[in-house]
């Protein structure tokens, strides 16, 4: 049973939680995979992991490698952290990154929007200066935070190889310099 301490929390994947077990094992291998529906008429990829296909109810699926790059679709920026270990990391960003893979499929407003925190290229939580550089439209790539055997968390860092917007959209009011 993958289990480890991470930022003051005990993270656990139960052995009977087959979908999450496979998902986080791929993350631990630093090789992002998602489930792809095996129905030949569907074939859609889904996130987060689940037991059946949200589009066709199909039960069969395959784990497939997915290019873990995309664009910030929206974010929250936490200044008043709740979980104790996050307090010293505030302000921290919660990013929803829309993957290039399957963006706008099967309908215009559907996409794989993968959550994670903003980290630097080495996987450390972003400092206040880096936080201010990221907003809606920023191009991101995935990095992993190792937690335990069989368990790593996907996070997001600025994609050095991508063309970044001149000024990504940021919340219009910056209070007290934060």
């Amino acid at each position, binding site marked *: 049973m993958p289990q480890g301490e991470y930022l003051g929390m005990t*993270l656990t994947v*139960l052995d009977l939680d087959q979908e999450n077990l496979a998902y986080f094992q791929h993350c631990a291998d630093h090789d992002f995979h998602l489930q792809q529906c095996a129905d030949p008429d569907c074939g859609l990829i889904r996130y*987060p992991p689940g037991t059946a296909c949200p589009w066709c109810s199909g039960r069969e699926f395959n784990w497939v490698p997915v290019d873990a790059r995309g664009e910030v679709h929206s974010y929250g920026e936490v200044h008043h*952290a*709740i*979980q104790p270990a996050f307090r010293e990391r505030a302000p921290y960003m919660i990013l929803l990154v829309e993957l290039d893979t399957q963006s706008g499929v099967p309908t215009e407003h559907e996409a794989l*929007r993968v959550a994670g925190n903003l980290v630097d290229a080495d996987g450390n939580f972003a400092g206040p200066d880096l936080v201010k550089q990221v907003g*809606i439209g920023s191009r991101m790539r995935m990095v992993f935070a190792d937690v335990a055997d069989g368990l790593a968390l996907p996070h997001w860092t600025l994609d050095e190889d991508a063309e970044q917007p001149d000024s990504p959209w940021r919340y219009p009011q910056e209070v007290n310099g934060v």
Partner: protein
Amino acid sequence: MTTDIDATAGKYLRDKYAIIGVGETTYTRGSGMTTRALGTWAIKNAMDDAGIPASEIDGMMSYSGNDSTASPMLAGDLGIRLNFYMDVQGGGSSSEALIGLAIGAIEAGMCETVVVFRSMNGFSQVRIGGTGARASVPVGGDALHAAAYGWFSAGQNFSPTFMRHMYDYGTTPEQVAMVKVIHSEHASNNPKAYYKQRVTVEDVVNSRMICKPLHLLDCCVETDNATALIVTSVDKAYDYANTPARILGVAGRVCKPRIDMHFQHGPISTVAGHYIKDIIYRNAGVGPEDIQCTGAYDAFTFTSMLQLEDYGFCEKGEGGDYVSSGIMRLGGERPNNTSGGHLCEGYTHGMNMIIENVRQLRGQVDDYCPVDGNGNKQHTFNYAEPAAGGGCRQVPDVEITQNLGWAMPGTGSSLIMRKG
């Protein structure tokens, strides 16, 4: 808006049920009581309000997140013998949903008169904001995709939805702050409100940042409280003390296509009200243009705005204009949350906004206006603060109200009532 159906047919049950009594406990931060004691007092207050004896109540329902006491315990304390009870898991927007289910239970012949309650030590025991004991619980399963990122409290959870609305439509912090400003005006005329102080837009946008785009004053006030209401059929409703609030329609726990990670289905700045409106207005036989007073759930300033917009009180994307225009102020065209709501009266998971609308429909809102010899409020309709000679919060001649219940961006419920 209105679809032409015979909603008085059994299938729809329009106008066949009513709320006959409402009650609550004092909104505090430190009740010094168990949820069992709080719930018992709230139900007793609702019974006294209706003038209904324990022997004429035979159903009870509640919702909680394992932070309450089960119906049979409270019923036993009050001498109520139950023919039906159901205690469900649920947070915001469960109030409207349970009223619908209470109607269903009565319609099925399982019972005749149902108490719906919510009892919570929302400050001194289980804080919805996630501080205290909730901050360090083990994280497993699906929470690995959220709580592990410090994405955990309601404000953190909803923030990408709110932020995207600003991006999509140019909504400003100052526009949204007006929700708090207006609700604080209403609360100043509510003797029960936890926060009675009127605030300004500057107060809101200069208060400390909690989770962008939410400042402290964009967030509701966690309190200890219990709330209760009593539902029965219209053929019994007129036997009791008050003018019944008749139920025109209800919609319960309507969801966007995904509920875990609803962000996969956009636009993420659209909320469940987008779907609810097609059910609630059909069932009630009225449209947004007929609603004179709204109770749009204000866990945050943004939740009121997003819902009012998606239910069709304004065009999509114009919620910022709507909430900052003065329409929802007392004296405006369609006041919202006249008690001060969750932002100012106290956080109840939605119940207090229904209670307030019931009292509005009776014309007997419990403000600072004088009471005549028959115990009836003599409203002045002066909405200034009490100290400025006002203190009223009664909407004049209100016939139809709507509650817009929120659980999360992807889930909500609604209730439309009329004066009986």
